[in-house]
């Protein structure tokens, strides 16, 4: 497939093409795009109540402010904007629709009730502050535990008991296996509410092309194609006349893989007022209205044998959906994800789950990096440790006994999902070795009860669902998420190559990595390839960038397109070289005669013929041009796997946690650019450390968010981060083209459980049971004291 002599680009530390302009500050993010002089700016009036009836909205003072062009409420918007309705075709889902501005009732703090259009962003904000709204505050269902009850206030009148989604599953022999097991180990895990918090807040700019009567829409998104389709449907405006362009995106993490109400409002007002409209949110708005995630409760029960093997597992999962189903993933993504992924790399043959998404009067939840996997692996990995403690078997041994063995691969799990390849045992073996696990355990056993510092070690073995194709999204009912991605290759008349991909990167280095893939599969020099993405006018349709799908789905599309185009190049080259096409090999932007490598033509010579720019005529039967578009639908999913092993020290007096050692053994299949892969893992791990130790969106009992700013929403700084030791095992996927498995989310998925288990392990000798996030000192101290009091009480 790849020419023998072609110098490989895949697998190399190719420095990023994105860097030079970003390092000079020339990256053009949304707010850097020069808007036309007549641009109008938006500012939204937001609800200060979690739940209230809107009695009256007075906009006169706002409208009267010089510089204000218009003020809109829900009633005005309803004339030209349809509600956003998240369609999910899965049993047990109750759809809620959402107007882009709240109508009659507000359902979370920060929900928009009116929007000001003004000539200057400062004036827009002034005017938004002059909008007076009379509210009748209503009781709010804020905490998941409270919203999930008969007596809770309803978030939507037509959604009884606030259950937005409910599903259950049991494998055929589950009940019998569960009942016949020797013992049951159970635990409840409560994860904290967090958010992606990309450093660049969201924003968009809508421009009109008056001649073509079309909309040019710049938006800081990961999903330009899905956004375009959604805009067309909601605004009832022809899709061909909408062009969505993603500029540089300052971090996405899934936060920007949702389609938001503000995007609809910006586009709708541009079309309605016939003026350019720009909206850029500030950080407070970002934290109030961008999707939140992982407010989950897992109740696990494992039926085990005396050796610690899980004979049957039962999961009861409750997730906090927030006030509305976000678009396009809705409220089912976390609920189905957590329940389905939790069996992970373990050979669990009997499984049952019950999972629900509960509506609350809080910001909608959505797809933040890792989705439910950091939380479901925190649960199952926490349970592995508890099995070990209960039986007096080391938790690493418990895992070894439960892992899928390499000879079982390819393996179909209890939910019917196929793992094509993996390295579960080898990753664990190597991680234990690199973290010096058994010596640590020896030293730990020698620790004394009065030591000031408690040390613990935590492990997380996991699989990650990545690169899902159409089958993967259909299984979860997400019919608005296509699953395929695509690539368009053009060898231009000059012989240089344009590659357009249906992706929209937010820092992943796609311009570099897709050039590497194409270089190898087309036999072209990497520097001859120019990659472009994120513009719906040029890039072919696709599912875009989220859920660790870039390398798998778009990488596969690049390979497929290259394979198809290289045949045409080879045919024309064979004609020029006057040899059989089988003898032609493409390498380094040349076509050579394999049997006589001195004989070659370069891509330029081939292209000149293809584009009819030379006296040599196109061979008979060939069509003009050197262009191809291919769609690639990956398998149900690819399955990267990894093991994270972490050593922590907890100060017994202050409960401050320090990470002393962090080891990762990762298997993402074939690596395209190891430097970029490591960068993805580093970033994910640090987000995971944040989630485990400090990050938390705090709502008070009335539904007021108490930390909508970066002073109070704590994220890791450089000093909070350890050295990270990463090593790779490359077990290529046999189901996905190219063998790539995806790497966007693995870091965070492994970090949250591993850090949690390490802290829990450190505190285990105090008797404290650590099962909630975040692991802030106040919580850890409380648990240690509670245990101490219980012990003292027993002594009396």
């Amino acid at each position, binding site marked *: 497939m790849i020419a023998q002599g072609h110098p490989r680009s895949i697998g190399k530390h190719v420095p990023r093409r994105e860097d030079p302009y970003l390092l000079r500050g020339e990256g053009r993010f949304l707010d850097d795009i020069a808007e036309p002089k007549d641009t109008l700016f938006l500012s939204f*009036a937001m609800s200060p*109540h979690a739940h209230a009836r809107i009695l009256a909205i007075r906009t006169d003072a706002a409208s009267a402010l010089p510089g204000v062009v218009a003020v809109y409420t829900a009633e005005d918007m309803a004339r030209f904007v349809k509600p956003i309705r998240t369609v999910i075709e899965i049993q047990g889902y109750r759809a809620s629709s959402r107007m882009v501005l709240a109508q009659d009732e507000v359902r979370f703090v920060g929900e928009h009730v009116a929007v000001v259009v003004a000539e200057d962003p400062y004036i827009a904000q002034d005017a938004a*502050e002059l909008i007076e709204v009379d509210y009748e505050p209503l009781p709010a269902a804020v905490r998941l535990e409270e919203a999930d009850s008969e007596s809770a206030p309803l978030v939507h009148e037509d959604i009884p008991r606030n259950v937005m989604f409910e599903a259950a599953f049991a494998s055929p022999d589950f009940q019998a296996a569960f009942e016949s097991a020797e013992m049951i180990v159970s635990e409840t895990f409560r994860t904290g509410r967090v958010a992606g918090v990309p450093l660049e807040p969201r924003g968009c700019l809508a421009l009109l092309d008056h001649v073509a009567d079309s909309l040019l829409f710049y938006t800081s998104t990961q999903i330009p194609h899905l956004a375009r389709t959604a805009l067309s449907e909601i605004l009832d405006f022809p899709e061909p006349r909408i062009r969505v362009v993603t500029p540089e995106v300052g971090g996405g993490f899934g936060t920007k893989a949702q389609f938001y109400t503000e995007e609809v409002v910006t586009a709708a007002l541009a079309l309605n007022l016939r003026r350019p409209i720009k909206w850029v949110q500030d950080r*407070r708005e970002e934290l109030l209205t961008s999707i939140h995630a992982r407010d989950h409760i897992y109740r696990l029960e494992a039926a085990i044998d005396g050796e610690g093997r899980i004979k049957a597992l039962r999961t009861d999962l409750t997730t906090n959906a927030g006030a509305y189903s976000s678009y396009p993933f809705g409220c089912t993504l976390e609920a189905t994800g957590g329940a389905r992924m939790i069996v992970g790399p373990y050979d669990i043959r009997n499984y049952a789950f019950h999972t629900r998404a509960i509506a609350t009067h809080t910001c909608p939840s959505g797809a933040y990096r890792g989705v439910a996997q950091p939380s479901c692996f925190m649960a199952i990995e926490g349970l592995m440790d508890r099995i070990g403690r209960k039986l007096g078997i080391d938790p690493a041994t418990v895992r070894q006994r439960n892992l899928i063995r390499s000879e079982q691969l390819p393996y179909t799990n209890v939910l019917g999902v196929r793992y094509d390849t993996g390295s579960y045992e080898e990753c664990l073996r190597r991680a234990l070795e690199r973290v010096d696990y058994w010596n640590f355990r020896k030293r730990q056993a020698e620790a004394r009860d009065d030591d000031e510092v408690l040390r613990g070690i935590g492990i997380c073995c996991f699989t990650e669902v990545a690169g899902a194709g159409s089958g993967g999204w259909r299984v979860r009912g997400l019919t608005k998420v296509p699953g395929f991605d695509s690539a368009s290759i053009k060898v231009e008349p000059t012989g240089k190559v344009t590659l357009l991909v249906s992706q929209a990167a937010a820092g992943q280095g796609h311009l570099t990595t897709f050039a590497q893939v194409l270089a190898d599969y087309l036999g072209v020099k990497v520097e001859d390839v120019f990659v472009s993405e994120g513009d719906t006018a040029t890039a072919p349709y696709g599912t875009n960038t989220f859920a660790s799908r870039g390398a798998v789905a778009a990488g596969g599309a690049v390979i497929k397109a290259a394979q198809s185009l290289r045949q045409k190049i080879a045919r024309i080259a064979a004609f020029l070289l006057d040899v059989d096409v089988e003898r032609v090999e493409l390498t380094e932007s040349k076509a050579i005669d394999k049997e006589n490598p001195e004989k070659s033509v370069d891509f330029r010579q081939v292209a000149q013929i293809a584009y009819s720019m030379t006296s040599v005529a196109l061979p008979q039967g060939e069509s003009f041009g050197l262009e191809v578009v291919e769609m690639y639908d990956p398998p149900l999913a690819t399955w990267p796997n990894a093991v994270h092993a972490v050593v922590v020290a907890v100060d017994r007096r202050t409960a401050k946690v320090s990470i002393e050692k962090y080891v990762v053994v990762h298997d993402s299949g074939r690596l395209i650019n190891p430097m970029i892969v490591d960068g993805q893992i580093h970033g994910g791990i640090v987000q995971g450390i944040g989630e485990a130790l400090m990050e938390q969106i705090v709502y008070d009992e009335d539904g*007021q*968010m*108490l*930390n909508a*700013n970066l002073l*109070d929403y704590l994220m890791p700084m450089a000093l909070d981060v350890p050295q990270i030791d990463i090593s790779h095992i490359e077990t290529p996927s046999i189901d996905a083209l190219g063998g790539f498995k995806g790497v966007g989310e693995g870091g965070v998925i492994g970090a949250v459980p591993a850090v949690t288990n390490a802290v829990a392990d450190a505190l285990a000798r105090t008797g404290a049971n650590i099962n909630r996030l975040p692991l802030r000192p106040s919580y850890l101290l409380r648990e240690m004291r509670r245990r101490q009091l219980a012990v003292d009480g027993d002594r009396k």
Partner: protein
Amino acid sequence: MNFAGEHLIRSPKHAVWDAINDPDVLRDAIPGCQELHKKSDTEFDAVVQVKVGPLKAKFKGSVRLEDIQQPHRCAIVGEGQGGVAGFAKGNAQVELIESQGATLIRYNVHAAIGGKLAQIGSRVVQGVATRLTLQFFENLVARIEPGDAGEPGPV
């Protein structure tokens, strides 16, 4: 948010009671109070400007006296709309205890804030509330016992 405290004023109970029912005294004593009008014997309308961290907001609101047991105790219930800054509401259980010609005011406050005030000011709001309360009593003392300062009690 809950906080409690007490304050000793060297005046007899009935004088303190009259003072906290007098709109003119209250207007001077409430920090940042710009307007205060008596609507009825137990209701006032007020406009108060408050600074919480980076936020300066003008609250328009009403204050109601409830459960009145003159001159021993009452509940002060209030709420204010600060426009875009959000809102504040709360109630204070106030008790007057006289001993040796002085009056001990004991109070128990439950307050809640909402909107921007909560989102960016929650970290400092308790401190602000305590400070404003203290200032209120200092101002009150200044009105009731001219030229003499009261002793703040533990807060």
